[in-house]
């Protein structure tokens, strides 16, 4: 039991690290011929990936997975709220600029 749970934590860590390293690829791709350019796609991807990682951290490391429904829903709501707020402000800002 303990080994299974520990294995799970290790796999979770691997996934989180993999997503983090993937950012390097996004970062490289975002620089068009070495020149940094603004890009909605990159921004949305970066924020969404970050939120996915946050949710994984909450569910696995913070043990929300084994928590009552209320906490599961609250944390999911928190992640969604953060995403909506950040992406909303970013997209609105780009429209205004």
């Amino acid at each position, binding site marked *: 039991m*303990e080994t299974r*749970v*520990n294995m799970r*934590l*290790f796999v*979770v*860590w691997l996934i*989180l*690290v993999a997503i*983090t*390293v993937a*950012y*390097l690829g*996004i*970062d490289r791709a*975002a620089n068009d011929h070495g020149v*940094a*350019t*603004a*890009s909605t796609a*990159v*921004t949305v991807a*970066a*924020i969404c*990936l*970050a*939120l996915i*990682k*946050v949710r994984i*951290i*909450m569910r*696995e*490391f*913070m*043990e*929300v997975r*084994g*928590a*009552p*429904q*209320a*906490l599961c829903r*609250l944390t999911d709501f*928190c992640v969604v*709220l*953060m995403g909506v*707020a*950040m992406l909303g*402000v*970013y997209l*609105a*800002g*780009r429209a*205004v*600029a």
Partner: protein
Amino acid sequence: MTTTQEPLVVVKEQGTKHVPGQPDMWVFVFFESLVFTAYFCVYLYSRTQHERAFLHGQSQLLAWLGVLDTVVLLTSSWSMARCVQHARAGRYAPARRDAFLTAGLGFVFLVLKIVEWARLIHLGHTFTSSEFFQYYFFLTAIHCVHLLIGFVVLGVLVWKLSDSQEIVETCATYWHTVDFFWVLIFALLYVVR
């Protein structure tokens, strides 16, 4: 505890759902997440209004260093989660080791941050040199303040390790929060365009 009302803490039988740590700490997590989200929104809006300046500032950052920072903190969260599991099973020595490992990784993060700040300042980028760096130093500094508080919290965790699993979980919850704030800050400062 009978369930005539809907309790947040249910301890019926082994393996049933329970709130990790004090529910109070989750109030903090939620509230502080909203505050940080507000900061991120201010940053993102400013970014859209001064695209070129922000892109120029951002190009001075080293993405791989940001990735390294993130991996260090993620690993500290991993050791923190293991610590909680060990403590729950009564294995206090491994739990203590994991707690110290967490603190050690937190310290590595701090050193990396200071090195990065020193490098940027050496290149002429300071808190007041440009809007991008105003936000960069602000977000990384306020995150570091949270990290420093995290060391105090880890101290409390080690102190209460064999006394109260609830305090251990509460402290762990705080530490993971510091980690996931960095996950967001990294994406916003280093990758977002």
